[in-house]
């Protein structure tokens, strides 16, 4: 069976990997455009500064790693069906960061805090799924209301104070190895795990079926309710994990920590070449999409574009990618 994660590319794992076929396969990948864009942006930065710097790329990759986590969370939800989005994501990120920093289980208890934070992500996802499946509320409104409720939790928890997350955990995330930071490695490992979950497990395969055609999937024995629960819990856990990483990486939290991840997560998915019609995921694409967004931001700062122009260009990138993806895809409306 083809790995569903790359199903949009129509490749099969049994193909003999000759060089030519690798080339052909690569060209058919949905994220190839994004990859080209990322490389061009890196070269552009090199031209502007006069040196082609690997550490510039790695620094941007670290930032992009955060965005890729948010993007992957959003992507799983988008894949579960047309019109599904998770608007609670930025609030879960922020709340997760606070729970991590608040030291509710005692100041030194790092593993306890991590577990508690991830549990918060599970709970947020479960509430979302319950609203959608049980009360039949559309995903976009259900997650919006969950987000509103979480916001109040954030306000409540932050008055309790917080402190830096220390210990081995901090050391591990901040360690640097030839410019490769621990936090980037952590993000990459998480992405790999998410990719595995989406492409190699029963859950992932059935999620892709559900997103393509919910009725056909139901008749093929897929249980919609449980799958949606899994999807939103996955999104919640990834968001909470992102909150943990941000809290440690930054050594502090603020109430608007997650703010930029709502638009950013959708943009990363779209720029990664993944169509938002449901049933398609590509962790690699989303990661590259996140890298493109981050590099574009850095380039625009290096080129000393005004902040207004920066936003205009970013918006144009999103719109242009989504239009081109739609034009090239065979099944237009």
């Amino acid at each position: 069976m083809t790995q569903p994660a790359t199903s949009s590319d129509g490749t099969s794992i049994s193909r003999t990997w000759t060089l030519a076929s690798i080339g052909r396969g690569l060209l058919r990948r949905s994220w190839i455009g994004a990859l080209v864009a990322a490389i061009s942006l890196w070269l552009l930065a090199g031209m502007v500064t006069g040196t082609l710097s690997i550490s510039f790329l790695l620094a941007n990759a670290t930032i992009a790693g955060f965005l890729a986590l948010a993007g992957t969370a959003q992507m799983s939800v988008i894949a579960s069906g047309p019109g599904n989005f998770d608007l609670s994501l930025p609030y879960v990120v922020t709340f997760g960061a606070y729970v991590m920093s608040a030291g509710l289980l005692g100041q030194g208890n790092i593993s306890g805090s991590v577990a508690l934070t991830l549990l918060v992500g599970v709970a947020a996802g479960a509430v979302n799924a319950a609203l959608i499946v049980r009360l039949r509320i559309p995903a976009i409104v259900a997650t919006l209301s969950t987000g509103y409720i979480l916001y109040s939790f954030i306000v409540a928890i932050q008055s309790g104070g917080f402190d830096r997350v220390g210990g081995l955990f901090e050391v591990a995330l901040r360690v640097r190895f030839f410019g490769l930071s621990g936090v980037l490695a952590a993000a990459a490992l998480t992405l790999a795990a998410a990719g595995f979950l989406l492409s190699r497990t029963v859950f992932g395969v059935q999620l892709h079926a559900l997103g393509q055609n919910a009725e056909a999937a139901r008749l093929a024995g897929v249980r919609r309710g449980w799958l949606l629960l899994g999807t939103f819990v996955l999104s919640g856990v990834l968001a909470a994990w992102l909150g943990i990483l941000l809290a440690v990486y930054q050594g502090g939290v603020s109430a608007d920590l997650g703010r930029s991840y709502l638009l950013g997560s959708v943009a990363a998915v779209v720029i990664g070449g993944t169509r938002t019609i449901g049933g398609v995921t590509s962790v690699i694409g989303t990661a590259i999409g996140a890298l493109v967004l981050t590099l574009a931001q850095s380039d625009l700062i290096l080129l000393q574009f005004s902040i207004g122009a920066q936003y205009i260009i970013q918006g144009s990138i999103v719109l242009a990618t989504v239009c081109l993806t739609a034009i090239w895809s065979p099944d237009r409306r």
Partner: protein
Amino acid sequence: MQQNDRSAEHPHGGAVFISARNLSKSFDTHEVLRDVSLDIRAGEILVLLGPNGAGKSTMLNILGGTLRPSSGGMAVDGEPVEFDQYISKGSRARSIQRVFQELSTFPNLTVAENLDLTAERSGARSRREIVRRAAERMQVFPGNRIDVCAEVARLSVAERQMVEIARAMTEPNTRLVILDEPTSALSAHEADQLAELVARKAAEGVAIIYVTHKLEEALRLAHRVVVLRDGKLHFDGDGRNLTHDALLSLLGATVEAPSAILPLSIADASSDLLSVQWLSTGCLRDVSIRVGAGELVGIAGLEGAGQRELLQAIFAARERDTGAVRSVSDIAYISGDRKREGLLPLWNVEDNVAISAVPRFARAGVVDFSGLKARAHEWLSELGLSQRADSPIVSLSGGNQQRALLGRALASEAPLLLLDDPTRGVDVKAKASIYAILDKLKEKGRGGILYSTEVAEFHKCDRVYVMARGRVAAEFDRMDVTEERIVQASFLRPTDETPPSGEIAPPAGGGAREASLARLLSWRSLPAAVLMVSMFALAFWQQPNAFSSFGLELLLQASLPLAFAVLAQMLFLLGGDIDLGLGFAIGLANVLAATYLVDAPVLGILALAGLVAGYVLLAFVVELLGVSSVVATLGASFIWLGIGLTIRETPGGKSPEWLSAAVQVKLWPLPLPCVALAAVALLGFWICRGWGYSIRLRALGNNRRTYVSLGFSALAGRVTLYALAGVFAVLSGLVLVAATGAGNVHVASSFTLATIAAVVVGGASFAGGLVSPVGAVMAVVAISLVTTNLTFLGISSEYSTAIGGLILVLALSFRSLARSIEP
């Protein structure tokens, strides 16, 4: 048997309206219509009969101008028809009305609006006029109890059918009415009314084509009877001297006494894969069937007799013992409606087959792809599809797609297969191979239930249950199954039939109060209204001086810009879309107005028009490219923000004096914000209800496909919606300029999500076409009053967002609750 008496005298028939010659039609290699010639005469009632799959629908589609024939020609009023032109013309221009079996009314519109939607346009009509005309048109069913102001969604199936019939029958300048099973849900009384109506219309010179499975109807109405069998014209002759038996034999049934309905033997149920006892749900009545291991059981009957519902009920009950249905744990379902219920269109053939086997090829949730792949190849080669394993499923022919879906059922290794018309639209060769697969399955001890629209297929079955009107009308053993018997039993009329819902006796006393209560409960804006009223009451109680002109002004002032914004968002939801860039679009309008309107008014107006043009552009992107509106508006939001920051990096500018003066107007006793909010709500109401185009916009939002098939332009509709939304975004920006005296691109950034919440609390549905502008404005006021009351009560404002979220959840749960207690 064929009796060509086209040249004979037709006492009822006037001039020939349409004459079709040698029409043939094939799909792929499957010929569904062969060389049929037919004349349709003015004033003649032509009853078209034929078993399932005889080609009736194809014939009607060609005559009605929705399908082009493979060969043959047609003439209208003696003029030869150019099919391209004929199809593009739209049904109204062809003077042909058709009542579909599948209902084509828009459930979100009222009866009157549905009737008006397709009516001849002669300028805008007032609401009252629309209602009056609708009531008039509904009089084709004298004494009917249909409220023309009620939404079609609230009508029973029978009532919906009556609306459709009334629409077709009363359309002016109609020359041909095609009625496809018009009485399937009607009561005897309404069917009588329809019969009279049909006779009257014919007397007026309108040609009628009447398709029915009810032979008594055919006998009563027909001037002429046409029978199609296997795509060929089998009989075409005078219908007035035919008998019931003659019709049956024309349809291919032998005339014999109806066999008794065999009682079900439940004794040996233990070895059964499935037993259903006295199942009654939806349209099913006391259905009892059983399937043993290695048995293929047929479910025959006319289309719509409850077969599909039975299969769905059995599938839904798997892994559960619901009492009426006892089955093995695993059941596979194969649907003939491949596009809607079968295909996973993004995947290749192999993946489509393997999906059902994934859980079996997994250890601890991780799929063993190589094992799965190996097995998938076995199944594919068994099906003869191994060459196509890597092809996208959508590139296959219908027959091969169906074989792949059968492969999916094999892969699941479920002992029981539900086959829902699996050979629909596949050619003879594919059919044969599907039968061969079924035979193999039986040998392996797996069982199946086959529902088919083609009677011939039941020869394969060990036992056949014939369903009629939701009941099992007959049961035949393998030995007794003949096509004739099945056809005959299909036309049986169960003796103890309860009348359909259309004829339920009016409720006893107190009904009026209950009805108005039910109406109140079903009012979509009820949560918003209740919330607003109670919040007002609480505010006045807490702070009595709020109950004054000045007090009201202070309470409501902040809601005004949001109210305009809410209308913009509502227009998006009306079309089934969402605007995630609204906040920054309003911010941009605010900046443009504050920057240019004073110093360069022309430039300012042009710039604001440019923003509206941006929205029109978005409409093109969404409609023509099929891009999700969420993503498109998200991208646009960056651009709005960027332009806003480029024009004005820090807040500033000024408000034109006329604008500031306008919001400073002091009114009494109701202050300006009060009046303005009411005006905004009414304006929204007018856009959604009162305007000439509004009915169409709501129809578009509800069902784009049906809308387009009626010959309307979806692009024009969406452009209208987006442009109007843009205008309201601009208005909201202007109100903000007037209120704040400056431009600031961030000023409305919280509006995006707040408007979505308010529109939804106000009663909008994401299904599209269902919004309530009055409710949305009430929700805006209510939500802002929640904040007010928190202040008055001295509760920490930390909780206001949480309360907002809870209100959203409560309003929506209230609605799904209200929906579930409705009949």
